[in-house]
C-alpha cells in the first residue's frame, strides 16, 4: 500500500519528503500529465460544462438554469454553519480567505451582540 501511495502524484503535497509542493513541482506535475496517455485518455469534460452545452444547444429546457448542488442535510450543516465557521464550498481549506472569514465571523458576533443584527449585516455588506 505504501508503495502505491508513493506513486500517487499530487499537486498538494510531496509524498516523498512530506513537504508542500512548490511552483516548480506544480509545473512539472502539469507538464507530466500532459504527456501521459492514460491521463489524457480518461479525461472527460466536467458535468457542469456538459449541462451548459445541453441547455444552450437544445434550448428545450424550462428556462431554469443549472442549479447549484443541494446543500448538505441539516444535521451535517447546523453545527458548522452556526458555529460561525463557513461551509466547505465557501472557503479554501488552507488559504488566507479562511482566516478572513474567521475574522469576519468574530467581528459579526461582536457587532451583533452590541449593536444588533442590522449593524452586523452592514459590516458584511461593506
Amino acid at each position, binding site marked *: 500500500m505504501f508503495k502505491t501511495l508513493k506513486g500517487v502524484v499530487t499537486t498538494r503535497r510531496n509524498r516523498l519528503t512530506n513537504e508542500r509542493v512548490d511552483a516548480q513541482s506544480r509545473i512539472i506535475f502539469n507538464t507530466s500529465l500532459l*504527456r501521459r496517455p492514460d491521463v*489524457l485518455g480518461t479525461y472527460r469534460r466536467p458535468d457542469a460544462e456538459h449541462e451548459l452545452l445541453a441547455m444552450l444547444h437544445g434550448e428545450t429546457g424550462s428556462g431554469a438554469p443549472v442549479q447549484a448542488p443541494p446543500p448538505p442535510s441539516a444535521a451535517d450543516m447546523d453545527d458548522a454553519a452556526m458555529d460561525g465557521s463557513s461551509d466547505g*464550498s465557501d472557503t479554501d481549506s488552507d488559504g488566507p480567505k479562511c482566516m478572513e472569514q474567521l475574522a469576519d465571523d468574530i467581528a459579526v458576533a461582536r457587532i451583533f451582540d452590541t449593536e444588533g443584527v442590522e449593524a452586523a449585516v452592514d459590516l458584511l455588506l461593506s
Partner: protein
Amino acid sequence: MEAGTDDTLLELLEAGLSGPLLRDVATSSSAELAGGASPLSLFSSRRVLSVCTDSPSTTVALRTRAVDRGQFLFAFGCAAHAANLVASDAARVAVFELALRESLIITVFFARSPRARWLLRAVRKMLAGGGAEVGALRTYSRTRWAGEGATIASVDANLPALQHTLLENAHSAAPIAVPAPVTAAVNSTAAADAIRRASPFLCFLARVVEHLEADSAPLSSYTGLFECLRATLAKKLTVISVAERQLLQGAPERRFTSFSDPMVVSAFLLDPFWGPVRGRLSVLRWGRPSLADMRDAAVERLCGGDVSARAARLADMAGFAAIETAHGALLSERNFHPSLLVAPVGVSVPRAAARSGSAVGYTAVGRWRGENV
C-alpha cells in the same frame, strides 16, 4: 502598494522558476524574442507559455511586466476571480441587493442566537415529517461573493420553516426576542419575491465559480463559461426582468474584457467541445470587439510582423472551423483533453491548433504563489 513591489515579485517568480526541476523547461523567451523570433515559433511542449494570477494592481503590473520582458508569451487574470466579481457587481442590482440584505438579516440572527437556531432546526424536522429535510441556513463570506447564491438559496428553501418558527415562538411561554428587522424579512412578500428571483442566477454563477475552482477547467472554459453566462442571461432566466438582465449583462462583459487575453479566446475557438454552440455564442460582442476580432488580435501578436505566417494561421483556423461545421464532433470526441484537440477532427493537423495545444491545456484559474504558471 509600495513602488517596485511588482519588480520584487517578478524577481521572486524568476527565482522560483530557476530551480533544478525545471532545467529542461524554458522559463523565459527573452533572448529569442530579442533576436527577432516570433512568439509562434517559440511554442513547444518544453516551454512555460503563460502566467495566470489573480488581479490586484500589483499582480496585474507583474503580469504586464513579465510579458513585456518576454518571460511569458501571454498572461491573463483568474477566471474564478472574474466570476466572483460578477457576483459582486450583481449585488448592486436592486433585486439582488434586496435579496442579499434580507437573507443576511435572517441568516445572521439565526446563526448567532442559539435558541432561535435550535427552534428552527426542530421546526424543520417537524415539517419534514420524517422525510428529507431542507438544508440549513448557510453563512456568507465577504471574500467569496459567489457564495451569496448559497446563502440566498438556503433562505429561500427555509422560508416556510422560518415563518413557522416565528409563529411557534410567538405562542411559546418564554419567547425569544426576535428583532423587528428579522420578523419583517421573514414575513415580507417583497423580500420573498426578490429571493425567489435572485436565486437561479446566483446559484448558476456559484456553479460556474465552483467548476472553475476545481482546477480541472481548461483554458477554453474561460471564454466558454462567460459566453454561456451572457447567453443564459439573454435567453433564459426569464424570472428576472429584461431591464435587470440588461444591467447584469454588463458585469460579465466588463470582467471578461478586463481579465482575459486574446489567447484565451483562441483556446475557446479551437476547442471542439464548444463546437455545437460556438456559432451562437460567437455573435456576442464583448465591448467593441467580437470573439473573431480577439482571435485575430491573438494571431497578429503571435506572428509579429510576419504577414505570410499570419495569413497561414488565419487560414488554418478558418479551415478548422469549416471542418468542425461540416463534420461536427461526436460527444465522445468532444471529451478529448484540449491538448489533443487536433485528434477529434480527424484531418490534417491545423498547425495553429497543434501548436496551441500545450497552451489550451493550462487551467483558467490561478492562485498567487505561481501555482498555475
